C-alpha cells in the first residue's frame, strides 16, 4: 500500500527530521524523496509504503496534520493510485 506525502512549508531546521521520525514511529517506510527549495519555502514529495503501519489511514493522516500544524508545515497524504490514474493511460 503506497501513498504520496506532499509537504510545503517555510524552510526551517528539523522539519524533515520530525516528519521522518513520525513516519518511522508509525512503521511507514520511505521509498523515495524529492525535495526542492523555492526561495524561503521547501516543497517535498515522498513516496511511502504504509502497509506495515499500525494505524488506520485516517489516524496516520491525523497524526501528519497534527505535526504539520505544530511546525507550520502543510502536510498532505494521498493514496498513490490517484496519481497513477490521472497521469498513466
Amino acid at each position, binding site marked *: 500500500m503506497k501513498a*504520496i506525502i506532499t509537504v510545503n512549508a517555510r524552510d526551517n531546521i528539523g522539519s524533515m527530521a520530525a516528519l521522518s521520525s513520525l513516519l518511522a514511529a508509525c512503521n511507514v517506510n520511505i521509498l523515495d524523496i524529492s525535495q526542492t527549495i523555492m526561495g524561503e519555502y521547501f516543497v517535498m*514529495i515522498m513516496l511511502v509504503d504504509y502497509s506495515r503501519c499500525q494505524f488506520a*489511514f485516517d489516524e496516520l*493522516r491525523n497524526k501528519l496534520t497534527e505535526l504539520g500544524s505544530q511546525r507550520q508545515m502543510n502536510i498532505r497524504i494521498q*493514496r498513490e493510485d490517484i*496519481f*497513477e490514474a*490521472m*497521469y498513466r493511460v
Partner: protein
Amino acid sequence: MSIINTSDVLQTVQMIESQHLDIRTITMGISLLDCAHPDIKVLCENIYRKITTYAKDLVKTGEAIEHEYGVPVVNKRISVTPIALVGGSHDSDEYVQICLSLDRAAKEVGVNFLGGYSALVHKGMTVGDRNLLLSIPEALSVTERVCSSVNLASTKSGINMDAVALMGQVINRSAELTRSTGGSACCKLVVFANAVEDNPFMAGAFHGVGEAECVINVGVSGPGVVAHALKSYPDASFDTVAEVIKRTAFRITRVGQLVAQEASRRLNVPFGIVDLSLAPTPAQGDSVAEILELMGLERVGTHGTTAALAMLNDAVKKGGVMASGHVGGLSGAFIPVSEDAGMIAAAEAGTLTMDKLEAMTCVCSVGLDMIAIPGDTTDETIAAIIADECAIGVINCKTTAVRILPVPGGKVGERVDYGGLLGSAPIMAVHPESASAFIRRGGRIPAPIHSLKN
C-alpha cells in the same frame, strides 16, 4: 521521483487545493419497485427500511475515500425509482406521505439530497402519474431533501403538451407554497425531455426502470481546473484549446472513475457510470462562464458564446470518454445561472438573457437551469418556456431540462438568495407576450421523423 513524476504530483495537489477539483457526488441508485403496496403505511415503511438498509454506509464510505485520496467528495446522494411507478394506486395526499418517508430516510442516512420523486409522462399520464404531479407543490414544501423530476417529452414519443401545461401550474404553485424562502421548492424540481436513467446530479436524478437493484454512479466536476489550464494558452488556436480541454477532462474523469470503482468495491454495489460533467459552484474560480470568457469572450452571453460552449461540451466528452469504463448521465457542461459566479455577473449586466441561455442549451449537456424569473410569470408562460426546451431536446436527440424559479413577489433585477450550493440569482426577464392560446391546445406534439429509425 522514480515512480511518480514530481510535477504531476504538484499539479494534482494544486488542482485540489486551488482549482476546486472535486468529486461532485457519489449517488447510490436504489430500486424501490419491490416496495409497492396497497396500504400506504406499509409502502412508506418498506421504502424507509430499504433506503436506510442499502445506504447506511454510503456517507461514511464517501468520507473515507475523500480522506484516503485527498480529493473532496462534496455530496453523497441517493436516487430512487420514479415514485409514480411505486405508488401508482395512491392519491395525492398519500403521495405526500411517501415524500415525507423519503425525506426521513435521507436524513437518517445523512445524504443531502434524494432524487426520484418523479414521473415519466412523455407519452401520456396514468392516474398515478397525475396524482404525483399534483402532489409535488405540497410534497416539496413540507420536505427538505427530496428532489422531484418529471420527464415530459422524448425523441421517440414527442412532447406531452397536457403534462407541459400542468407543470407550468405545478411550478408556480410550488413557488407560492415556499414564498417565504423565495420559492425555494422550485430548486428541487426539474422537468426533462429525454431524461436519462443514470444521472447522478440533482435535482434530476432518478433510478431508471432499466437499472439494477442498486448501483453507484459518480459525478465529477472541475471547471476551475479547465479554466486554469486554458490560462496558459491565451492566444492558441481552437485546435490547441480543444486538446487542452480534452487532456484536462481526461484527468478529472480518471479521478471520478477511481472513486467510483473504490466506492463500488467498498459498498459491494455494482459500478454504474461516471458522469463527466463540468458542474460549477458559486465559489470564485469554479465557473463554466469563466472558461468561455477565457476563450476570448468579453462576457458570457455575447455573440460567440454558443460556439464556445459547443466546443467546450464536445471536448469534455471526448477527453472524458476514454478515462472511464462506462460514461453516462448527462456528461457535458452545466450552465446553472445561480450556481455560477460568471453567469450571475453576466445576467446582472444584461449580457446573458433568457433567449441566449435557450440557444446555449442546444449545445450544452442539459438545459435552462436555476434561472430566477418574476413572480407574476403566468403558468402558461412557464409551460411555453418548457415546451421550447422540450422541442430542442426532442429534435436534437439530447437531454434538455428546465429548472426555473418563479420568485413570488420578485421583480426583474432583484436578487434572490437560495443559500449554499444553490447560490443566488438575479431575477431575469421573460417575454411579456402571452402564449396561453398555444398552451391551451393540449394534446401531444408528434415525435419527429428521425425518431423512426427501425
